[in-house]
């Protein structure tokens, strides 16, 4: 298969309805942080972009949303071509210019403060980080608290960015500024909006 044919294959089967179900999963995940949403519609992108991350990108990104790719994704020409064809989103020149960040290698991700945080007047002008992880329940357990959580929620994604708990505490401290996080894995997707606090991390 040529690069061109890889690029045009692998979008949603039913673009309108698949985008709606993915959005609803992300919306519920964002509204109830820590909950895992399974059985989402998938796209078939070239590796190392995963079907789940690709589905989120197809549902939310377009020509109005510059994307920044971490080196693991940016280095792959087929991934870049696939995203360009299916979303129309331009690649951001710098991490700070991106509306969406797609990252395939969490452990080597640059610090969260490098991404757009929004302003105090317009905190919505901030980035959403879509992080590909291996799973959502096998890592160190994060205990979550905040809006959308009745008592407490737990999530154990892995692998995660270095010093993630500390980085997230800093992100939360910038509220209402800050980034929002969508975690995707074969298990499904979960989200941590900037309003979420990590109250403890079990070893």
């Amino acid at each position, binding site marked *: 298969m040529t690069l061109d044919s890889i690029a045009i294959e692998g979008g949603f089967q039913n673009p309108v309805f698949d985008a709606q179900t993915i959005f609803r999963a*992300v919306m519920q995940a964002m509204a109830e942080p820590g909950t895992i949403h399974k059985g989402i519609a998938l796209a078939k992108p070239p590796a190392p972009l995963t079907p789940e991350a690709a589905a989120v990108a197809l*549902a939310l990104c377009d020509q109005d949303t510059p994307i920044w790719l971490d080196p693991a994704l940016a280095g792959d020409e087929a991934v870049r071509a696939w995203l360009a064809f299916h979303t129309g989103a331009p690649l951001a020149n710098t991490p700070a210019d991106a509306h969406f960040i797609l990252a395939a290698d969490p452990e080597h991700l640059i610090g969260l403060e490098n991404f757009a945080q929004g302003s105090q007047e317009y905190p919505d002008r901030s980035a959403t980080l879509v992080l590909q992880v291996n799973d959502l329940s096998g890592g160190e357990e994060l205990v979550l608290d905040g809006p959308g959580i009745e008592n407490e929620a737990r999530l154990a994604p892995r692998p995660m960015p270095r010093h993630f708990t500390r980085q997230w505490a800093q992100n939360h401290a910038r509220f209402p500024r800050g980034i929002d996080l969508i975690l995707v894995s074969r298990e499904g997707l979960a989200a941590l909006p*900037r309003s979420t606090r990590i109250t403890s991390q079990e070893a």
Partner: protein
Amino acid sequence: MNAHTDNIAQYNFAYLDEQTKRMIRRAILKAIAIPGYQVPFASREMPMPYGWGTGGVQVTASVIGTDDVLKVIDQGADDTTNAVSIRAFFQKVANVEVTTHTADATIIQTRHRIPEEPLNAGQVLVYQVPIPEPLRFLEPRETETRKMHALEEYGLMHVKLYEDIAQHGHIATTFAYPVKVEGRYVMDPSPTPKFDNPKMHMSKALQLFGAGREKRIYAVPPYTRVESLDFEDHPFEVQTFDEPCALCGGTDVYLDEVVLDDRGGRMFVCSDTDNCEARRAEGHRGHLSGEEAAT
């Protein structure tokens, strides 16, 4: 793709084009992440006038899917012109199932009321909002109100409420009574009666607010603190009614006054018609229910 979805795909599902829906969906996600903050969005013209809740309609259109069950209320009733039109609109453009029963709905679009029946986890309540900015009547300039929210400068709002107390002996505001969300943003709860404010607090449902003319979307996630602004010496008081619903005998519900004749006869009945009917179906009766049934 089955015949059902195939048929809908002939035109834009839920009326809006995909790019518009993506834009609104991104705004909704930001609104959820920053509870009570008003996210600007590029509001579209809808095939109905602004006063009909185009903001709410755009939010519903961006959220709704073929599996949803939609309920639309206006002043608590499912059968008003506005509610009937919006329900018919979504039946046509999204081919969704509709209901008048609060418990059966996955999405409830509303103007002026929150259903009496507590909402469930997973339900989405979409409010039609005319004026989203709670500080607007104090400060007409958007740049200034934005700054006030940014700096949490809400002193003027408290001064206004306190002027009420000085003038009336209590806070006179009974509709669109301002709330503070999760201890941070002061928010307009839309023109609901303050009777409904406590229902917003720690609701199990996701609450989304759409203002079409003003181009704003905001949200309150489930299990989020929503506190009505008040003072230690003048705490927030929920409205109470002197008599129960004339039809179902319900107390602790919001009542509308209905004029019965031109001799000054009147009665108070539930504003939430679905709740009233459900109560009567359970055998509850008000003092005029017999007479009502006879006419």
